[in-house]
């Protein structure tokens, strides 16, 4: 932790050198740290959407959860509106930082009615004056996310995936947060419903000015919704750039192959385009390669890549890349 680190007041959320290690038992006595996030730094402005993409196991969910302190980070600094987020300050910040989860089935308590699920943050923070006020606030929230007020007394299992995700979003909005972590919030939904929810996220941002950390593996979705995108590979950020810049001009070899692997819903481009197909699998995070973690699958890998991890450097217009060869 760097106690002297001065946060930039322009940013709503600032993360500096975040490290999150989980001890994993290896053998009888050995414990190896699983480096789920290793030196991640980024910042989000008020009302902005930062997309965080990467493949499964790259640590994107861990970063999101450490950010709102569901996990206690091993090291690193997190600031919210210039205030350091730690065990002491988090209680007061809970109202301002919320989360929308991936699984619309396990993220809602099956024994609670919609009204009680959405009302829980209100109950916890005692944010109403009377029973009527509580109910009004809940009905307001339901309307905001496009749910029928008649359904307030129903149980979560009676709704479809898309509607359940709306309930989860209404719950996250209940305390009027300034920042929401969306962890694969649309990944489990069907295409037509996914589009509804994406539109809703965008509308809510315009209405309420809330900032998102949008974690997803679907590049098309992330590109659509984000202002800026950060690409993660094995616990490290490899490239961040404005959304269109990253899409038009990817620099890191991993980002390039990730973009080219996306199947576009267009038979002509899909069948004719030359794709860069990566060889092999992602290495286990318990046995990380030395130096740059991507070098085992990289076409351009040199000796230097094995020796030292490249730092994120600015290539103009805030396009940051961590690569020796590009």
């Amino acid at each position, binding site marked *: 932790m760097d106690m002297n680190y001065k946060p930039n007041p322009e940013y709503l959320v600032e993360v500096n050198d975040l490290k999150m290690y989980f001890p994993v038992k290896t053998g009888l006595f050995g414990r190896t740290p699983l480096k789920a996030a290793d030196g991640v730094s980024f910042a989000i402005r008020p009302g902005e959407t930062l997309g965080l993409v990467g493949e499964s196991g790259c640590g994107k969910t861990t970063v999101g959860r450490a950010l709102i302190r569901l996990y206690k980070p091993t090291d690193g600094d997190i600031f919210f509106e210039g205030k350091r987020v730690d065990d002491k300050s988090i*209680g007061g910040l*809970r109202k301002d930082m919320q989360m929308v*989860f991936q*699984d619309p089935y*396990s*993220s809602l308590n*099956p*024994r609670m009615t919609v009204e009680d*699920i959405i009302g829980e943050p209100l109950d916890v923070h005692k944010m109403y004056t009377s029973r009527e006020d509580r109910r009004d606030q809940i009905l307001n929230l339901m309307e905001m996310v496009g749910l029928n007020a008649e359904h307030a007394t129903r*149980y979560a299992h009676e709704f479809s995936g898309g509607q359940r995700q709306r309930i989860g979003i209404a719950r996250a909005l209940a305390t009027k947060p300034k920042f929401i972590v969306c962890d694969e919030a649309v990944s489990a939904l069907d295409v037509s419903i996914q589009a509804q929810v994406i539109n809703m996220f965008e509308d809510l941002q315009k209405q309420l000015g809330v900032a998102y950390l949008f974690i997803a593996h679907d590049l098309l979705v992330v590109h659509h919704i984000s202002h800026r995108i950060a690409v993660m590979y094995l616990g490290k950020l490899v490239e961040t750039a404005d959304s269109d810049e990253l899409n038009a001009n990817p620099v890191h070899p991993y980002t390039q192959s990730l973009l080219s692997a996306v199947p576009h819903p267009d038979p002509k481009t899909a069948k004719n385009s030359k794709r860069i197909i990566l060889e092999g699998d992602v290495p286990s995070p318990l046995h990380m390669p030395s130096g740059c973690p991507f070098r085992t699958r990289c076409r351009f890998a040199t000796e230097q890549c094995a020796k030292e991890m490249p730092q994120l450097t600015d290539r103009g217009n805030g396009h940051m890349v961590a690569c020796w060869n590009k």
Partner: protein
Amino acid sequence: MDKTYDVDQMPKKNPLSLQIDLSKFEKATDEEKKQADVMSESTSFFKDGMRKLRKNPLAMFSIIVLVLIILMITIVPVVVPYSYSDIITVNGKRDKSATNMAPFKYSKMEQQYIDEGGKVFPHIMGTDELGRDYFVRVAYGTRISLLVGVFASVIVLIIGVLYGSIAGYFGGKVDLIMMRIVDIIYSLPDLLMIILLSVVLNEVLKFDGHGILARLGTNMISLFIVFGLLYWVGMARLVRGQILTIKKNEYVLAAQVSGAKSSRIIRRHILPNCISVIIISAALQIPSAIFTESFLSFISLGVKAPMPSLGSLASAARSGITTYTYKLIFPALMIGLITLAFNLLGDGLRDAFDPKLRR
């Protein structure tokens, strides 16, 4: 191309004829569309489970059997004019000839009394070797056995749930130590403990007087103590496992993100979601406790005479098993019915309410 379907046989150019009302080609209104899209009826978890339970014939049969048994043990001692501990009296005189009678038979004294115009309540299950009405004794025995079963499972429920939820929710070192204690308790031989305890208690507590505990005897007390000391470990393990799985659900994380305290999370999120599994397991605990009690009474470590229990009745019936077979059949039938009904009901509850078996 191999044509198998009529549309494919349709020539590309020739028009297809349809009989349609052209006025129907108007735009539909939103109301009309809404009518085609209805949400199914609202049900709560409990209502849905009850509906499933009602459709399960075995579970419903068990409920009926249990209700009948409970009715029997409450009504019979009131209606039947005999006591479980006293020898039958006719017209104020002890009837020493009324021993080991077959069902619905009267002794000489009773027959005489009836001939004189008196009324005698029939011995539905006959009498025992001391001349006590067997029907009343079986009813009392059932009462005792059921009480022991319910009481034991309540003890198990309370200790197991408390212990298991503490270990499961706090996890880490707390969990590690608490579960090793459970492992140690698992390794203690339960029957040996009961026998030892009852011997010790017999020495220490000398009951005289008429309280219910005194009438049950020290054996029963040691049985309860052993249940309280040893039998909750299974329940504790179950509860801990449940809590560990529920804790991983995203709705618990969501409550943490909302800033909810541990007590609220346990109360609102964790307990309501494992309560059904706990109740099912407690229901299945009852027959097992009844079995243990019957077994102990059978090897004469059970209730103190003259208090009957189903096990002691069966044990007493052993001596005359060839001549008075019915005396073994009645209590054995009762034990069988009760344990079967509780087991079937527990299974039915599990099918209807266990969240793992439903989606």
